[in-house]
């Protein structure tokens, strides 16, 4: 867990202080030094002579916030939908959950690809597409939790005290649903980063010049013999996602000891 947290912190700091740390501009080309192996340039240069180390640092400023944003917005929408469905019940529950299931019927990246293709390929639309794909799993989880929590006696007690439905939902029910939801968000961040980079890799996210990690790795299809061009951004992603999954797993073990 400590290892996971420190790896994540290293990447966050690297991305945050990229302008201070990076030796070159991420877009600065040096055509006379194309495809240089690591050496004079710490991690080598890409097909346009751009410094890969600098690009990986700057890339963190795109990929990491994108992943966080997808989860933050997706989890919020999903939580609201799930809470309403579970708490109000009846027709609303049926309706909301059927809609949720529809979105879950598509594999994530496929639906995201269709949506970005419809909206036009750029970072903003890729994030919108991923949010549309992401909220249903939260709606499902939170609905289940609300259904379980609202049967508790303390909820009944609050109702007897004359509290309004909104008060009961926000003050008594939701606080008891938060822990598992937060665990899912940590488990999910790695996934969101992977999918966002996957979209960019396919040319449906960040534009080709930007130092987004998935975009940088895509260069490897044409230059896979010059392994440093794609290996370093690839390793950046791999270590970050492994670390965040590791944190998520540890949190789940704490909150759900049965899995240990």
């Amino acid at each position, binding site marked *: 867990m400590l290892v996971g947290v420190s790896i994540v912190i290293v990447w966050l700091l690297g991305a945050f202080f990229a302008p201070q740390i990076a030796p070159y501009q991420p877009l600065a080309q040096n055509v006379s030094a194309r495809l240089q192996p690591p050496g004079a340039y710490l991690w080598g240069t890409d097909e346009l002579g751009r410094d890969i180390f600098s690009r990986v640092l700057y890339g963190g400023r795109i990929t990491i916030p994108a992943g966080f944003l997808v989860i933050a917005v997706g989890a919020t929408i999903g939580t609201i939908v799930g809470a309403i469905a579970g708490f109000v019940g009846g027709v609303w529950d049926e309706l909301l959950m059927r809609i949720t299931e529809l979105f879950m019927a598509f594999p994530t*990246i496929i639906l995201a*690809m269709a949506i*970005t293709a*419809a909206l036009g390929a750029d970072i903003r639309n890729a994030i919108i597409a991923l949010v549309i794909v992401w909220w249903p799993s939260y709606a499902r989880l939170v609905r289940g939790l609300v259904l379980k929590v609202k049967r508790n006696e303390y909820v009944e007690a609050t109702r007897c005290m004359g509290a309004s439905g909104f008060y009961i939902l926000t003050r008594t029910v939701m606080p008891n649903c938060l822990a598992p939801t937060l665990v899912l968000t940590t488990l999910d961040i790695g996934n969101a980063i992977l999918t966002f980079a996957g979209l960019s890799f*396919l040319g449906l996210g960040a534009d080709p010049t930007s130092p987004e990690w998935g975009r940088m790795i*895509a260069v490897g299809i044409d230059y896979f013999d010059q392994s440093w061009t794609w290996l370093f951004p*690839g390793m950046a992603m791999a270590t970050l*996602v*492994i670390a965040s999954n*590791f944190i998520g797993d540890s949190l789940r073990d704490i909150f759900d000891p049965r899995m240990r």
Partner: protein
Amino acid sequence: MPIYLFIFRRVLVTIPLLIGITLVSFLIANAIPADPINANLPQSQLNNAELVAAFRAEWGLDKPPIEQYFTYLNNLLHGNLGRSIKTRQPIAEDIARFLPATIELATVATVLGVAMGIAFGIISAVWHNRPIDYLVRILGLIGVSVPVFVLALIGLTVFHAQLGWVAGPGRLGARTPEPPFFTGMLILDSLVSGQWNTLGDAVSRIIMPSMVLALYITGLISRITRASMLDVLSADYMRTARAKGLRERVIVLKHGLSNALIPIVTVIGLSYGTLLSGAVLTESIFAWPGIGRYMFRASTSQDFPAIMGVSLLIGVIYVVVNLIVDILYYFLDPRIRAA
């Protein structure tokens, strides 16, 4: 409950979901800010008033949206998915041409991934909290964390470029003759027709992409197998089995695994969706001429009708696979049969 009634009920539940999928893809297709005629017809045909009118009539674009949706459904039921802008072919024909390659790849990957995942999961649960357990768990974590496109590039570099153990990208080398067409799946076709060289080349080329896809599945399945087996292994009937003096292998595999199988089968069904997603990425790296690569090309060239056609198809495949998983429960769990 008799089996046919069980299957009938499951299929009945699936129908609204399938209709919903068509609705979602219709909505996305109509959410494009651009005029659908501009988005669907190549530039050269836009000036031809006759072609534009024909397209408008085919998809009912001059009618209200609800009627448009039914026209769309009707076209779908007749196998009309529209025409690809890029290949100029009907999309249904394109898909029929590219689908066997993807099915072949996905099947090999699933078999590899499920076999490795269950084996690793059992090992991990039996030697719980021993070094081998930690090793398996770390491998599983890497499997689900490292992006498939990075794994694919590493695999190509190490096992093809450096070691030369496997052939490069593509389904067959340029000089390998194609087997006669039976199923479109090269391994089957070359087996049936007895072309052993082709078979060797096809197998050598499918190993890398399928292993890359299989690693993710292995990660998912070894985790759930481990958790599910741990649950089962501490059950009372396991102690009874041990007290009866049964051999450890029988206890773990017969009493343990068969009871732990339900959650594992669920994850296999769910991972099929991930597999199809991964196929888009893997196929584009390995130049594998399947629907994943078709979709990749369609998405980079703004070939909107093709993208919609493929995502509709994949949505349907995904739903059908999960229907099959549901039906498998019937055979795995006697309690469902009794209910």
